[in-house]
């Protein structure tokens, strides 16, 4: 049924609060959960909803993302008809090198928007982690004759779910889930009905709204398009009830990874009828030595473990030498931790080497980040 829908993913999020983690990549390409990149989740959700034409808007440092996506084959998107389209920044005569906001990037995708044969657009940001399909949301969208349907989740006071950005919408809805008012969250844990930066809209309407906003020198999708028109258009919400988190700061990234150690989160994300796809690597399976002591941890293939690992996430090809203690750590692909090093609440980016005997520690709000390729 989703043959009528194409996907449009905005992978141009700037986020300085992710610090060194996105120095050399964009947020969408940030590794997560042992073997995925953040984008894998939204991308797989679309594929699992039978959406077969997906455009990905990129903006800055997207080399890493392109390496990851390649032809789209691993998401079954390398097809003769439709498939995966990467939409890099596009300058026009009227609009040269202006990228002040998301709208400029979206306008740059104009050629793609004109070309896609599907009638409806499922627009999404790239930095949300959840496993769902959009089939039911689409059905309701049609049934309600909605102009826009926004995916949202309920957040109650003190709830830890949905690590949210200030730029997320908090929406007020009537009993029919029609959105009557909305504002930006004023704190990161504001309770309410929080938008998940994902909406369904007719392609023609999206183009009209975009052109209109761009013509008036507006730059923001949410402020200038959604909020501006909230009472003119039929905007509805569609609730998502499973696990979700948004990656928008180091603490949020750290927490989202640690959440993956909870069985209920694993069940929500990985053991549904729909899988999350990612680039395949032909790593050998993980190997445990005689002194390995691993508890409450996610371990990817290609790891060699001879030390102690607790409450941690190890990506593919990580080496943990004898005598090492890792606690509450995130260790990205191909990093090596040598003899007797001791690490607590540390994020090791890809290809990091930790010298023998090193002692490093951070805390939950400010985990210690060792950048890509460093020797510490």
């Amino acid at each position: 049924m989703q043959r009528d829908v194409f996907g449009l993913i905005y992978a141009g999020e700037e986020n300085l609060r992710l610090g060194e983690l996105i120095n050399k990549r964009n947020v969408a390409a940030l590794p997560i959960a042992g073997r995925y990149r953040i984008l894998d989740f939204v991308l797989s959700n679309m594929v699992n909803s039978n959406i077969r034409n997906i455009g990905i808007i990129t903006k800055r440092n997207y080399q890493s993302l392109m390496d990851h996506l390649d032809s789209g084959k691993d998401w079954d998107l390398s097809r003769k008809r439709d498939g995966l389209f990467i939409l890099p920044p596009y300058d026009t005569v009227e609009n040269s090198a202006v990228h002040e906001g998301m709208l400029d990037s979206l306008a740059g995708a104009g050629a793609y928007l004109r070309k896609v044969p599907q009638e409806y657009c499922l627009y999404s940001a790239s930095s949300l982690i959840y496993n769902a399909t959009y089939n039911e949301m689409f059905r309701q969208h049609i049934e309600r004759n909605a102009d826009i349907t926004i995916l949202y989740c309920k957040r109650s006071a003190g709830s830890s779910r949905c690590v949210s950005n200030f730029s997320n919408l908090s929406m007020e809805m009537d009993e029919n889930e029609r959105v009557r008012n909305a504002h930006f969250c004023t704190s990161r844990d504001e309770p309410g009905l929080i938008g998940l930066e994902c909406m369904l809209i007719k392609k023609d309407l999206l183009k009209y709204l975009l052109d209109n906003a761009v013509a008036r020198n507006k730059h923001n999708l949410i402020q200038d398009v959604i909020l501006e028109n909230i009472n003119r258009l039929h905007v509805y919400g569609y609730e998502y009830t499973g696990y979700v988190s948004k990656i928008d700061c180091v603490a949020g990234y750290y927490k989202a990874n640690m959440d993956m150690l909870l069985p209920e989160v694993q069940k929500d994300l990985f053991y549904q009828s729909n899988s999350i796809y990612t680039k395949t690597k032909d790593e050998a399976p993980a190997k445990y030595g005689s002194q390995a002591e691993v508890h409450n941890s996610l371990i990817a293939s290609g790891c060699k473990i001879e030390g102690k690992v607790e409450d941690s996430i190890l990506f593919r090809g990580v080496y943990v030498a004898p005598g090492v203690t890792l606690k509450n750590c995130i260790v990205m692909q191909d990093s090596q931790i040598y003899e007797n090093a001791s690490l607590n609440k540390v994020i090791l980016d890809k290809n990091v080497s930790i010298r023998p005997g090193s002692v490093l520690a951070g805390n939950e709000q400010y985990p210690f980040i060792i950048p890509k390729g460093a020797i510490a």
Partner: protein
Amino acid sequence: MVGKKKCVAMLLAGGQGSRLYALTQKRAKPAVEFGGKYRIIDFPLSNCTNSGIDTVGVLTQYEPLELNAYIGNGAPWDLDGMNSGAYVLPPYVKGKKGEWYAGTANAIYQNINFIDRYNPDYVLVLSGDQIYKMDYNDMLRVHQDNNADATIAVIEVPMKEASRFGIMNTDAEMRIVEFEEKPQNPKSNTASMGIYIFSWAKMRDYLIADANDETSEKDFGKNIIPKMLENGERMFAYLFEGCWRDVGTIDSLWEANMELLGENPALNLDDDDMRIYTRNYTNPAHFISDTGIVHNSIVSDGCVIEGEVEHCVLHDGVRIGKGTKIKDSIIMSNTIIGENCEINKAILDGDIRVWDNAVIGGQEGKITVLGSGTVVGKGATIEEGAMIAPDQKID
């Protein structure tokens, strides 16, 4: 018209592997799982890719469904190029008659048309039941340098075991002077690995002659090789010095798996230059819970381990419940083991369900084997050395 190929590989994957009993009752031997995430056939297919041989005919006959689905278009081994591919070749009807593959040589004979499409100079014949990493280019170079008609890969086996193999006796130039199938008093210890390179024009003639010979068993080892020797063709041995494991029996399969668990195993699966490719399934990273303990083991993606695992090979998606202790065992894909079970020296095929408190295997050192799809009820006991056929219910 397809382009000419220098060398085409023909992979004999039709064998039943009857000595693997329950593991091959529902699938061909090359489809048997190995080493945590592989299947036996991944090794020859990856060797082909790593050697730049991009056209592989896979000859299937026995229980081919699982194998056919597994090979698909050959993409996991990078064999899906514009002018390359992995082609599954089952027996088919020709003109008015159709027949099964009557032997290894007959299987190739029946596919002469397939090979002719590529007009190759050489044909590499492989078997689908061995675990090894080999660059076939070296062997091909030796074959060319010798201006040979056939080159046979050999490996040195311990002298006392030589009588179990086909032994190639060679002169100082490695030219084969004599071939003895399972000799009582072997003259040397260079055993045939069942890997051959033939110059196609020559081989083609012999295959046709063999097909017309009613007394022939249509087998490479028994008919083609002896015949070529008899006629004085240029036949050479190529000594392979890497790690090679025949996994044709339960014992040898178990041992080859366990060998991977040692430090610096002879078969290095982690070598970037000779990667073994396999069909990857979408599984998350594996999870070891608070109660999980894993030592000296290989664990693949998607496993969830809450029990104790010592000296085991666990394939994709295996679940081990709390309080369960598993030792010296191989657990294949998606098998689920409940709580407080005890498993010793066993091979559990894929998709098995073992309920709580079951006991499988014992302490005397005999290997216990469970076929795929078996359900082991709560508190059931499976005696050491048992061989349980697939899809059984055991209470």
